[in-house]
């Protein structure tokens, strides 16, 4: 009896929690007339892709989507290589100053990156004078900052995965005549793949969701906007096209949802702590 009551409560609350998402997708699929109507209905009899077409074609959200994707994927690729190399150095090599570096890595994770917008803005402006591709208004500037933000945690996490690979394996590879470099890339890299996946999902979500740095760095020009910025510019205080805004929001949510489903198993085991930022 008590179990049945708990089940009923679970179902009701699950419905309430999921409702905003349902409402978002529903509004994105409603034909334009139904959204502006005085009494909104919780269903639609004539689903249409009009709103998606409107944002993708007219408002250029297709381009913004690709921009966001390019930034996030570049951050993932670069941070994986850099973080993996650093993790190998910190676990497999003995050298002076290793402990100091580890402590600094911990401190780096504490830095509230949101406070760094002002110096980073000026830094990117100076970068732009030397290498235009990473200056203000360029996607490269976003790649650089998110690379820096995602590295400390990615290194920290990969360290555990690299350390879990037995040293005997390395000795065996050395006996078989494999160089250290070869061992690192041919044996170690594939072995820490689960860690790489988890780290890359985190980097991806952080870069994909970022609004603050996109807002700060992309000040002029429309071609390099990312999705969040595109949504912000599209939103007008008085005459909102809610159908199109919800279509844009849906476009932004779907890739993250997919990624979350991929890592949901790891969510409980402490990884969740770093997800929302």
């Amino acid at each position, binding site marked *: 009896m008590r179990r049945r009551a708990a089940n009923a409560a679970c179902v009701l609350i699950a419905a309430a929690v999921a409702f905003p998402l349902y409402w978002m997708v529903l509004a994105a699929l409603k034909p334009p007339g139904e959204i502006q109507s005085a009494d909104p209905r919780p269903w639609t009899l004539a689903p249409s892709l009009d709103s998606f077409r409107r944002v993708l074609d007219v408002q250029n959200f297709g381009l913004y989507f690709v921009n966001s994707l390019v930034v996030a994927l570049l951050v993932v690729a670069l941070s994986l290589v850099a973080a993996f190399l650093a993790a190998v150095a910190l676990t497999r090599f003995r050298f002076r100053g290793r402990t100091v570096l580890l402590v600094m890595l911990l401190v*780096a994770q504490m830095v509230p990156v949101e406070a760094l917008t002002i110096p980073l803005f000026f830094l990117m402006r100076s970068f732009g004078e030397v290498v235009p591709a990473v200056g203000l208004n360029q996607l490269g500037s976003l790649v650089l900052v998110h690379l820096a933000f995602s*590295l400390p945690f990615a290194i920290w996490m990969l360290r555990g995965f690299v350390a879990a690979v037995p040293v005997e394996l390395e000795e065996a590879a050395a006996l078989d005549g494999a160089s250290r470099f070869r061992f690192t890339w041919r044996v170690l890299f594939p072995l820490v793949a689960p860690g790489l996946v988890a780290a890359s999902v985190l980097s991806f979500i952080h870069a994909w969701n970022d609004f603050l740095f996109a807002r700060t760095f992309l000040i002029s020009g429309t071609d390099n906007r990312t999705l969040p910025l595109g949504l912000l510019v599209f939103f007008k205080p008085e005459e909102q096209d809610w159908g199109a805004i919800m279509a844009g929001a849906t476009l932004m949510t779907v890739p993250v949802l997919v990624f979350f489903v991929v890592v949901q198993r790891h969510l*409980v085991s402490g990884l969740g702590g770093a997800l929302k930022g």
Partner: protein
Amino acid sequence: MAPPITPVAPDARTRAARQGLHRGETRSALLYLVPAGVVLVGLLAYPLYQLVVISLYDYGQPQAAGAAPLVFLGFENYVSLLGDPRFWDVLAATVLFAAVCVGGSLLVGTALAVLATRASPWARKLLFLAALGAWATPAMAGSYVWLFLFDQDFGLVNEVLSTLGLAVDGHSWTFGRFSAFGLVAGEIIWCSFPFVMVTMYAGISAIPREVVEAAALDGASATRTATSVLLPILRPLIAIATVQSTIWDFKVFTQIYVMTNGGGVAGQNLVLNVFAYQEAFAGQRYGLGAAIGVVMTVLLMLITVVYLRIRR
């Protein structure tokens, strides 16, 4: 290490080998550390140093454009910041707002975690799936969905309320200071309670059944079991969830910026992070903005130190 094969002076051999290895190791370790090191020093450590430097200068639009020389102010930016009643108002609003968000997420998350332990697996999975959806929603998308739900003219909430005869038509939820803060807090609690729920659920499921049974055998009531047995066991987890949520909610930017249109009517909904952004990039007072950033960093570092103390 492979055992030495030659019996000749094994000691000297290995020592030499080890030293050679050591030197080689340092060199390759440095090589492996270069990519991450360059990025972290250049884009994290240096900007952090620059943040402090900028906060000590009179850094406005002319200086940013290179048209006027920089004037060293010392702590003048901080003095004028601390003397500005607006700053204290924003700071108080930030603390209060974060407290409401953290309290709300903890309450909802813990309550639902307890509920999940009492439900059947299928119902629990359903709840977790819904929570996962809210958790995964990007702040930007979530903000707009909540704005739409509470929209003055086409929002579902106003529609339902007016059908029930509870509210006047066209009530604006973002106009009043507290109602706007409340709306944003609602969105934040919606997307951050799942973290608390998942953490607490893991903690509760890890408590051995025998502990609860022993308490029941000793004649403890359900409330007494909860407060005297379960709560102390879960305290470290609760502390972690609290501090982690505090760190997130203290530096919130996207939701406030989007839902209150950059800080609300006359800046009534500003929080520290948005305040720093507006001072720097809208008001072009970069020095003052950097000073706010330093204050925020110090406060967050203090919270993090507490966090690490608890975790250890």
